[in-house]
């Protein structure tokens, strides 16, 4: 614990103190509370075993695996084009973003690169799924903290994005649109103009949410200083995405990795926040949606003409080798380590999904907090069960 700011050190000491203070003043009996696997705060089937003293958490441990679907194993008996159907369902709210790193890894092994137009469209769809994903987070945040209205606004405006994804790919939730060497189809007519109007709506949605939630005093008092993750703790636990940026680490794979994608052609900013608390995590995500709409707007203006598919054989056989590609997905770093033995399908696929690493910090973070703060912290860490259990 070196190089900590005062604020971070204080919060760490407070958590430690809460740990030792319990049961000293008054000899009370603890209670073990099973939060989940079926519980409204866990977005699915995460189970958190919490030992409570009154309403204070003494010790908490997440228990995952209730929804394990064995995608890594399933991928071994699928051909390459079939794997995208599987990985769509990992982070089901930002499904297109799951396909991209896998396809990029396969392309890397085959030595092909998608044509520029396909790269642009990929990036646009990638950012649209980020918007669809994170805007729902912004609404859901309200529900977790007891405000029931924002989530409906989120569902209303996410619908526009899903319609766009459906218009381009044919699937609202599971597009299965990315192909090795490019995309399945070109964009439909009128899609570009429609998208421009949608990004405008989404920016208005961001303003609305900022008014409704982020400016609200109760919201601030519920999130500020709650669940503080100091910078080097975040790094040690392998957090990624907005959770890491909210702890003040300037780290974004869209900018830092040199991938055959179109992010480098747009002007945008990577937002960080020095506080590392729940508010910072929510705030960084809000800014991310805004930046995503900016990226989409700029790429729509600059989208080049040309084919959307490179020359690849009908039956795809990936040459022997190993490749690792990770991208900045809505939830954080998502990567695939693909091992090929030259067959129709991968020999082994290791999936690195963001949420699994992000919830690993939960036991550290939940010590000494109150029961309502469990919900705040889980909501602000933002995980998707499919992304934890795969």
């Amino acid at each position, binding site marked *: 614990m070196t190089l900590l700011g005062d604020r971070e050190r204080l919060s760490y000491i407070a958590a430690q103190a809460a740990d030792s203070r319990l049961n000293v003043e008054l000899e009370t009996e603890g*209670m073990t*509370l099973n939060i989940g696997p079926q*519980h*409204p*705060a866990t977005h699915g089937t995460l189970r958190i075993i919490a030992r409570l003293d009154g*309403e204070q958490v003494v010790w908490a441990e997440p228990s995952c695996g209730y929804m394990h679907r064995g995608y890594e194993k399933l991928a071994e008996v699928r051909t390459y084009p079939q794997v995208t159907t599987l990985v769509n369902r990992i982070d089901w709210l930002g499904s297109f973003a799951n396909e991209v790193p896998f396809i990029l890894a396969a392309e890397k092994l085959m030595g092909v690169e998608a044509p520029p137009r396909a790269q642009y469209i990929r990036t646009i769809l990638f950012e649209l799924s980020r918007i669809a994903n994170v805007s729902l987070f912004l609404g859901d945040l*309200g*529900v*977790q*903290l*007891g*405000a*029931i*209205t924002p989530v*409906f*606004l989120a569902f*209303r405006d996410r619908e526009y994005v899903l319609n766009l994804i459906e218009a381009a790919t044919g699937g609202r939730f599971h597009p299965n649109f990315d192909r090795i060497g490019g995309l399945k189809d070109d964009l439909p007519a009128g899609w570009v103009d429609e998208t421009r109007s949608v990004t405008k709506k989404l920016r208005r949605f961001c303003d609305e949410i900022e008014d*409704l*939630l982020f400016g*609200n005093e*109760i*919201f601030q*008092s*519920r999130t500020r200083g709650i669940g503080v993750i100091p910078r080097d703790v975040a790094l040690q636990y392998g957090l990624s995405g907005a959770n890491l940026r909210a702890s003040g680490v300037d780290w974004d794979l869209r900018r830092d990795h040199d991938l055959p994608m179109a992010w480098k052609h747009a002007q945008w900013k990577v937002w960080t926040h020095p506080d590392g608390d729940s508010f910072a995590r929510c705030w960084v995500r809000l800014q991310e949606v805004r930046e995503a709409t900016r990226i989409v707007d700029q790429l729509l203006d600059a989208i080049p003409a040309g084919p959307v598919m490179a020359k690849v054989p009908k039956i795809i056989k990936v040459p022997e080798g190993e490749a690792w590609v990770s991208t900045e997905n809505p939830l954080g770093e998502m990567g695939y380590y693909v091992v090929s033995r030259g067959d129709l399908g991968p020999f082994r696929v290791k999936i690195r999904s963001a949420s699994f690493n992000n919830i690993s910090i939960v036991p550290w973070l939940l010590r000494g907090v*109150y*029961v*309502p*703060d*469990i*919900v705040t912290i889980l909501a602000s860490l933002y995980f998707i069960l499919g992304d934890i259990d795969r």
Partner: protein
Amino acid sequence: MSAGAAVLLAAGVAHVASLAVEVPYWGQSLLRVLGGAVAVLLPAGTIVYVFLFKMMSFMQSRLGPMDAGPYGSLQLVAEVGKWLQKEDIVPERADARIFKIAPVVVLVSTFLLVAVVPFGPDAWFTDFEGGVFYALAVSSISVLGILIAGWSSANKYSLLGGLRAAGQLIAYELPMVLAVVGVVIQAGTMNLQDIVVAQNAGSIFGFAGLGNPYVLTQFVGFVVFMIAVQAELTQAPFDMPIAESELVSGYMTEYSGFRFLIFFIGEFATAGVFAMIASVLFLGGWGVPFAWFGWTGLDDVSGWMNLAGPVIVLTKMMLVTFLIMWVRFSYPRFREDQLQKFAWKVLIPVSLANIAVTSVLKVAV
């Protein structure tokens, strides 16, 4: 609403000797029971439909129920039917007798509360001097129901919810009482009927066209009272005892079927009754400014106010409930310790200061 008003009127006029209708004692009691049921259930149903079904939906850019009846107006009937058909589950390890009594205890406090609300010059269930005192006392009975519901359910979430409710309701009882004390000082009486008369017969600096509704002079008291009511009703931003994202449903977690229905009715009926009491204490209750018709006191008021009064009270109740629901649908939830801090560090000092200022002015002016 007018049907309800008529029954209320009947219940009220049963006492009036001038009508020369001799109703035997059991008849009077029956009329009061019927009137009480209407005065509790009618506002509850109206509030659920107008605010919970429709206003909340409009705030959330959706339509709400549209299929059952015109604009979904019979949705509540359908919901009640659904709840009545459901199995009445008592958890195996629950304290069955207590578990079954709890929702009734909560609802009873609502019925007891409506007993002192005046609906017109003669339309009241009971008219006694300690009305304010009584109302504040019986409103705490619901805490008991919630606490035993949480304890007897044999569920950890219920227990947490019940204990939170107990802490919260006791903390907010105090600011509520202190807020009302301002009104009592200004009116010089604890009788709710007299408080209504004092407001409508009063004048502001000699201008009697508005009466003297205490929301103007006791604005601080009104705000504190409404916040305390919000907490008493366990509605957002004070809904931690229910807190569906943390405690699933708090003390109601294990309840199903008609027992849940009783809790549900109790929640909204209590909202309605508290809104009625707020309108009586701060908005002039059933009366119109007496100067409009040249009345000077309770004895002058025409008999037709017995008919108009309930409608006026219900209208004001809807206005107050609108405030309650507006806040409920917009705000996130406090944390338990923040709620206690808010009660003890803000509301109680403010209402104490309000009492001090009111007393000084009462003596000085």
